[in-house]
Structure formats: structure tokens, C-alpha cells
């Protein structure tokens, strides 16, 4: 690890550290080229071992029927798993539910943060910082702890929500409210982060534009609509993208703990299978990702589908 900053092979990138070329022997060439690769090696090796190789393996497994038990035979089945997945009657519903969750999350990740971002500029100073801190707090709560406290709040008989409303609704296990509950809890979790992102975006906007608009006679509302929001659009696009990409991942631990917290020690296969088939069902447009073989799907599907069927 004693490589020096030496001449770059392609001396084009601005700011690259350069040094006079020296001897051209094989050893010095190696010493010249090797350092960046050596620094990158640990990260790249880990990436290949734990992300890209498994991804390839997942695709490979998806064309086979195998239950992952080393002693059992592995059969090549072509596209049978995909056919099976796509013809499952549950698929359409779960894709729709995923879209509903994404749609339901957008108010929390875009609408409320923008409103809060604009309003915090009205209250200003310490109060604004306090509000932001309070809104951010749920982000720090572990998902399982969040699930636990919401389960307590929504308890059918003793929960605060039911007692305040005078109802006895079983929010989490009732079709109709279950999905709403998942959306609200996930929204509660991420809204603080979205607020922070929007405030950062608003801080980055040059006030000169608003000043110019006011000189031209624009009202406060007009400035917000035609100056601030368009300038904020990259931030908003980022938040929308994040919501679409991560909604399924955000909700998963929540759904898992809220609906099957009862299970004591899950057999190894059920968890993994739930993950794979679950993600298959909830990643719209890419049902190929999880390569769960068909025998897996059939062997433990009732539990998996139950997880995703709620709501």
C-alpha cells in the first residue's frame, strides 16, 4: 500500500493528480496502475459477493424447481415459475395494492412536506426548528417498535384510538382499514425525512427570483406557485422516485410484524419464501426478480399470501 500519486493513463479528467512518468518496467507499470484498484478491491469484492452474484443466482434459480435442500434434486423448468407466478390469481390484486400503497404514501412524502416546508418559513426561528425536530422523531424509532406501539394504539378493545372514537374496530385485521393503517404508519415513519429533504431544497433556492417576481407585482401565492414550486421540482421528483422505489421495502417489516408477530420461531423457509414471493407480488413490472422456485411458492404460499392479502 505504498503506491504514489502517479501519472494517470488517460490524463483527461480535470484535477487528476499527475506526476512525471518514470521507468517503464513491468513492475513500475503495475505500481502505477494498481493503487486505485487496490483501494477499491474490498468494496467491489463485497459488492460482487453479496449483491451481484446473489442476483445472478436468483435469476438462475428462477428457472429451476428446487427447495434449497442440498440433498433434493434440482430440476430445470424453463419459464414454468414465471408462468405460475403470472397466472396466480392473487398477482393482480397484490400489484394493485402495491400501487395503492405508493399512491397513499405520496401525500406523506410530497404533499405534507411541501406544506410544512412553506409553513415553517412563516413561523420561523426556534419554533420552526422545534417543529422540524418533532416531525423527524418517528424516523428514529425502530420499525418493530413503531409497529408495536401502533398495535397498542389501535388495539380493538383497549387501544387509545378506539376508546377516543368510541368504536371497537379491529383496525389491523379488518379488510378496508388494514391498508389505510399500513399507509398511515409508514407515512408517520418517513414524513420527517421528507420534510427535511424539502426544507433543504427550499434553503437552496436563490431568493433573488422571488424578489424579481415581487418587483413585477406578483403576490405571495403567485410566487409560491410559479417561482418556488418549479424551482423545487428536482427535490420533489427525487421524493416521488424514492416513494415508488422504496414503498414496498418500507412497508414490509411493518406488515410482517403486524400480521405475523404471533409466530414464535419461523421455520427457515417461510421467512425467505415470504420475502421472495412477497416481493414478486409487490414489485410491479418486474415479477421476475425473486427466483423462488415453484415448489417454494406452493409449499408456503398460504402464509406469504396472507401477508400481502391484508387490506
Amino acid at each position, binding site marked *: *500500500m*505504498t503506491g*504514489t*500519486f502517479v501519472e*494517470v*493513463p*488517460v490524463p483527461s479528467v480535470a484535477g487528476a*493528480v499527475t*506526476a512525471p512518468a518514470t521507468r517503464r518496467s513491468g513492475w513500475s507499470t503495475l505500481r502505477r*496502475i494498481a*493503487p*486505485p*484498484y487496490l*483501494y*477499491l478491491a474490498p*468494496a*467491489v469484492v*463485497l*459488492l460482487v459477493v*453479496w449483491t451481484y452474484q*446473489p442476483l445472478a443466482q*436468483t435469476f438462475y434459480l428462477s428457472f429451476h424447481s428446487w427447495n434449497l435442500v442440498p440433498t433434493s434434486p434440482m430440476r430445470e423448468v424453463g419459464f414454468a415459475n414465471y408462468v405460475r407466478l403470472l397466472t396466480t390469481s392473487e398477482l393482480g390484486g397484490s400489484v394493485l395494492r402495491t400501487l395503492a400503497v405508493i399512491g397513499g404514501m405520496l401525500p406523506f412524502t410530497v404533499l405534507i412536506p411541501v*406544506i410544512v416546508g412553506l*409553513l*415553517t418559513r*412563516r*413561523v420561523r426561528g426556534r419554533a420552526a426548528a422545534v*417543529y422540524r*425536530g418533532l416531525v*423527524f*422523531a418517528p424516523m*428514529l*424509532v*425502530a*420499525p*418493530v*417498535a413503531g*409497529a*408495536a*406501539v401502533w398495535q*397498542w394504539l389501535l388495539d380493538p378493545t*383497549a387501544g387509545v384510538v378506539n376508546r377516543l372514537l368510541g368504536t371497537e374496530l379491529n383496525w389491523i385485521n379488518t379488510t378496508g382499514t388494514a391498508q389505510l393503517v399500513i399507509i398511515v404508519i409508514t407515512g*408517520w415513519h418517513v414524513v420527517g*425525512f421528507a420534510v*427535511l*429533504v424539502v426544507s433543504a431544497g427550499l434553503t437552496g433556492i436563490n*431568493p433573488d427570483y422571488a424578489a424579481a*417576481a415581487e418587483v413585477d407585482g406578483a403576490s405571495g401565492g403567485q*410566487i*409560491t406557485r410559479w417561482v418556488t414550486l418549479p424551482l423545487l421540482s428536482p427535490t420533489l421528483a427525487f421524493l416521488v422516485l*424514492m416513494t415508488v422505489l422504496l414503498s414496498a*421495502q418500507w412497508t414490509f417489516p411493518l406488515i410482517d*410484524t403486524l400480521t405475523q*408477530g404471533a409466530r414464535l*420461531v419461523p421455520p427457515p423457509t417461510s*421467512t*425467505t419464501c415470504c*420475502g*421472495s414471493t412477497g416481493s414478486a407480488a409487490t414489485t410491479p413490472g418486474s415479477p421476475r*426478480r425473486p427466483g423462488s422456485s415453484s415448489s417454494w411458492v406452493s409449499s408456503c404460499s398460504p402464509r406469504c399470501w396472507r401477508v400481502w392479502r391484508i387490506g
Partner: protein
Amino acid sequence: MTTERSAHDALIGARSPAQRVLGHLVLGLLSLFCVFPIYWLYATSLRAPEDVYQLSVLPWPLSTANYADALSKIDLAGMLLNTGIVAVLSALGQLLIALLAAYAFAAWSFPFQRLLYLMFVGTWLVPFQATMLPNYVLLARLGLLETLAGVIIPTMCSALGVLLLREHLKGFPKELLDAARMDGRSSWGSLWTVVVPALRPVLAALGILLAITAWNEYFWPAMVLQRSNAVVQLGLRSFLGTEGNDWGPLMATAGLTCLPVFALYLVLQRHIVNAFVRSGLK
């Protein structure tokens, strides 16, 4: 016109008291929605066991019976220690590996640089569920199931860390690296004597973020540690049951699970907020 910011704020209106009241009202309600569950978590945990179902806003008389109950039922101290080990080692490992990789990207240009960079960016598009099955099998082959090492090792390469540190190193003055080189320092030496001290705030922020994420992680530990409740998130799970929960001890455990993160947040508030904003994700 005091500062640019307040000038802008003035322009977007809202100097009238009515609008300010509206602002406080909306923000107050939202804050209440966000904070109430957390408050209720601790309020319930501090009630006496027979008062758990009370609706009074202030828990009185205060009692630590729920905590004692939780501690007697599960090895909470051991779990907190294990989770702490996982969080610290995971954060440190990710920091070190990401620092080396980001340094390579920033200080040299070399063939396949773009391709390698895209490899890191590409991990955003790989959902966890797509890789966990083979990862689980690989861990089993390595004999790391049911061990903390099995939880930590697969998380060691943080694409987020690499991208974030690279962004910061891009703005790093190359003159400093040149000067270090002329002083006869190796690249390894300049990394630790020139780059790291300059990056300290970013490294701190990223480290806190990674540690909190590792602390709160649920799904991967749940897979690796099927048969044990070695980390608190899993211990919490053992209190959750459909046929009537033991709410008092459950809330006490949940409260203890979140406590270190809250404490860290209160002490290092600014760093953490920066870390979350800069990270751009999660």
C-alpha cells in the same frame, strides 16, 4: 432586510398574525401526530401494571415494574449489548471500506472507473428481497448462520457511503494531495493525514447514520438469527402475540430499544440531521 433568507421569507408573505397562527396550528397538529405515539410508548411503559389500560395523559403513579418485568422475561441487557456490537462494527466497517473506495474514485482516474462507479449506483435498483435468498444460502455454507458476524458481514459494503464520500471528495482541493505527494507521502499516508482529517464531519455524520440504521435493522437479523433473539429488534418480536399482548413489558422493551437512538439524536442532533439530508435516502 437583515439576511437574504429573511428577505425571501418576507417575500413569500405571511407577516400577518392570522397566517402565522395558521402555520402554528398546522405544524402543531402534525407534530402531535408524529410525537404522540412515541410519548404514549413511554407513558404506557411507566404506568403501574394495573394502570396500563388507563387513558390519563400523565402516567401517575410512576412505576418501573414493566421494565423489571421485561428484564426478567428476556435477556434485555445481553440483547442491547449484542445490538450495540452489531451497530458499531457494521458502521465502522462500512465507513472504512467506503472511505477507501471513495478515495480511489476521487484521487485517480483509471480505466473502468465509470463502470465500477455504476456498479455502486446500481445497487439502489436491487431490492433486498432479490438477493436475500442466495445470501442466506451462502451464509449457511460459511457456517455463519445464528452468529452476529453473519448479520454484519453482508452489510459491509455501503453504496450510500461510497457515493456520499465521493461527492465530498470531489470538492476536495487537489493541491493538498499534490503538496502531500511532494512531501514524499504515499497515497496511504496522505489518506490518513490529509483526507481523513478534512472529512471528519462527514465521516461522523455518515457513521451515526449507518449505526442507527444497523441498530434499527429488523429483517436481515430476523433471517440470520432464526433461532435466537440475540438483538433487541428480535427480542421485541417475542413479546408480540395475536392472542393478547402483554402491553406493559412490550412498551418497556420497545422504549429501551429506541432509547439509545434518541439519546444519540439529542446529543448529536445537527450531525444526524445533516447525515439524513446528505444521504438522500432512508
